[in-house]
């Protein structure tokens, strides 16, 4: 019996979801791509540069956006999530729920609404390190290139001012939550990850000092479109961060937190060391590590960073990070190659927190899927099932591996819908 629907649903519009959607669509399949936030791009859009070649994320994203624009087989819904799934491979009834953007397709991204807005909200793109106007563009690589109006201004004089500022009649303050149904033959979960909550690692005092930050915040500090326009400075007073500690496995490989290795944080921190060293000639970066996991093609980057005399490697998982009397964060522990007990003060301390799959706690996958102990969804779940996973939803992958898993998922989904 032929499957009823040949449409493939991709949930999550990060690099994995985008890649899976494009690969399937370019092979002729009909694809619906759902993204919960107002834009495609996922976490990659928030990176300053990405290894191994330290490319700007625009490179990877822009070419994919062009492919989506050119392809009639892809239907994209942003600010959309799956509410329920019923049925089986070849015939899933899916209910989708959308939240209002309050800006319709007439938006030209002129920015007049943002000029008119007066209130500010924490900027999700910069992990709350700064604020944006309540009418905002998610970031300069947004797709669709369309503004968002925060629900907080609806029904206020500010909301009215925003609406009348738009020359194109693109502001729709009446827009409500909506649901609609889809019938699809296969589903690819590509819902990615969120940074492990650093505040839970109590001995590392993340909540105690603005100068103790996470690796994703470091990406934003170093980025030209970040809160400091790319200046790596102490969040507490804006002074240059010349002495920097990078703490590996902050919450990863830890039975109290994420028991697995997040796989990318070592390379992420090597990258951060390079960012700091490029910015300040007289800088010093200390990397505290258990072991450096730079495998295969990534080894060369490790060797390059290691050759820099301004970057030191300290084999030690710190016991604690405390705020010293002078207010500077101080890293305390035992150097395991000697047996020195150290307490070293820094301008900023960066916690290399791991990637926690969104499917673990962030949302409940509304259909039966097979997960490992940590909440990652196994690549192909169940025999004859039409449910697959890709990217970090599947395991702690870097961008290139995420794209590989996405291509694999697209192929499996095509096979499932073609019967």
């Amino acid at each position: 019996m032929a499957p009823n629907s040949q449409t493939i649903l991709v949930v999550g519009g990060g690099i994995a979801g985008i890649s899976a959607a494009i690969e399937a669509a370019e092979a002729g399949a009909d694809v619906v791509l759902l993204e919960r936030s107002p834009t495609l791009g996922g976490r990659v859009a928030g990176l300053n540069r990405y290894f191994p070649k330290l490319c700007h994320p625009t490179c990877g994203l822009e070419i994919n956006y062009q492919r989506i624009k050119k392809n009639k087989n892809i239907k994209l819904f942003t600010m959309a999530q799956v509410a329920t799934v019923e049925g089986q491979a070849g015939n899933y009834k899916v209910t989708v729920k959308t939240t209002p953007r309050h800006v319709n397709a007439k938006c030209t991204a002129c920015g007049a609404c943002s000029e008119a807005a007066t209130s500010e909200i924490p900027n999700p793109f910069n992990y709350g390190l700064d604020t944006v106007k309540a009418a905002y563009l998610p970031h300069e690589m947004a797709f669709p290139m369309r503004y968002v109006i925060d629900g907080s201004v609806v029904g206020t004089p500010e909301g009215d001012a925003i609406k009348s500022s738009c020359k194109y009649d693109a502001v729709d303050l009446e827009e409500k939550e909506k649901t609609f149904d889809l019938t699809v033959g296969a589903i690819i979960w590509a819902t990615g990850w969120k940074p492990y909550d650093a505040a839970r690692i109590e001995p590392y005092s993340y909540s105690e000092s603005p100068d103790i930050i996470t690796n994703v915040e470091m990406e934003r500090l170093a980025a030209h479109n970040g809160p400091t326009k790319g200046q790596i400075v102490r969040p507490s007073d804006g002074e240059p961060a010349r002495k920097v500690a990078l703490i590996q496995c902050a919450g990863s490989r830890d039975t109290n937190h994420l028991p697995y290795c997040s796989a990318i944080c070592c390379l992420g921190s090597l990258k951060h060391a390079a960012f700091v060293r490029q910015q300040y000639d007289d800088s010093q970066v200390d990397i505290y590590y258990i072991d450096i996991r730079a495998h295969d093609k990534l080894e060369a980057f490790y060797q390059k960073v290691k050759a820099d005399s301004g970057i030191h490697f300290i084999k030690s998982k710190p016991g604690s990070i405390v705020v010293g009397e002078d207010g500077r964060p101080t890293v305390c522990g035992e150097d395991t190659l000697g047996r020195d007990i150290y307490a070293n003060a820094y301008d900023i301390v960066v916690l290399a927190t791991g990637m926690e799959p969104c499917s673990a706690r962030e949302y409940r996958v509304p259909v039966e899927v097979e997960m490992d102990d940590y909440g990652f969804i196994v690549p192909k779940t169940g025999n004859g099932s039409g449910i697959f996973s890709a990217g970090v939803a599947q395991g702690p992958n870097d961008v290139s591996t995420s794209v590989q898993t996405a291509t694999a998922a697209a192929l499996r989904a095509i096979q499932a819908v073609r019967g």
Partner: protein
Amino acid sequence: MTANMAATIPGQSARKYDLGFARWVYENIEGGDKLSMCMQCGVCSGSCPLGTEMDYGPRKLFMMVRAGMKDAVLKANTMYNCTSCYSCVVRCPRGVPVQYILQDLGRAAARMGYQEAKTTDNARFAKAFIWSTRKFGRTDERLFTFKYYLSFGLGEAIKKAMANMSIAIKLVKTKRMHLGMPHRIKGTKDLNAILAKAAEIEKREQGI
């Protein structure tokens, strides 16, 4: 300290490897079965408030267990310096019950007759503590401190007591230490029966 140093200097006769020691620890020491999970990250030693007082921090001691350095491990003062604050246990990323292992290694060293189990400061202190507990059912700070001092010999005990006199006077003034007859609990006899039972169970479990 010197004995321990000798045990770790290559070429010295005190350096002995017992290749079955790690296995023995895994199988016989409380929590030892989890010791193979240790990844030598250093969190325990780096979190230990007494880390700098120990001949080796827990991490290094565990490496020495693995290396089979039986004598050096059982002569270390590490076990007796542990204050049971449990920082290491709650922070260890691999679920190793560090404190339990140290505690039981100390007991094993005492059973095997290692002198350090009697002569390190904290071993003497623990002995005086249990003496007071048995006798009065509680700690009499004054008598148990003097008992501890006495373990160094009478002359040394008097010296130590005189040196700490001003502290003692302050404690008396603030009613933290009292003069006169020691306070006792009512059921010292029952308490000693409980302690005897505990010792009996321990012996049984150790198969002695």
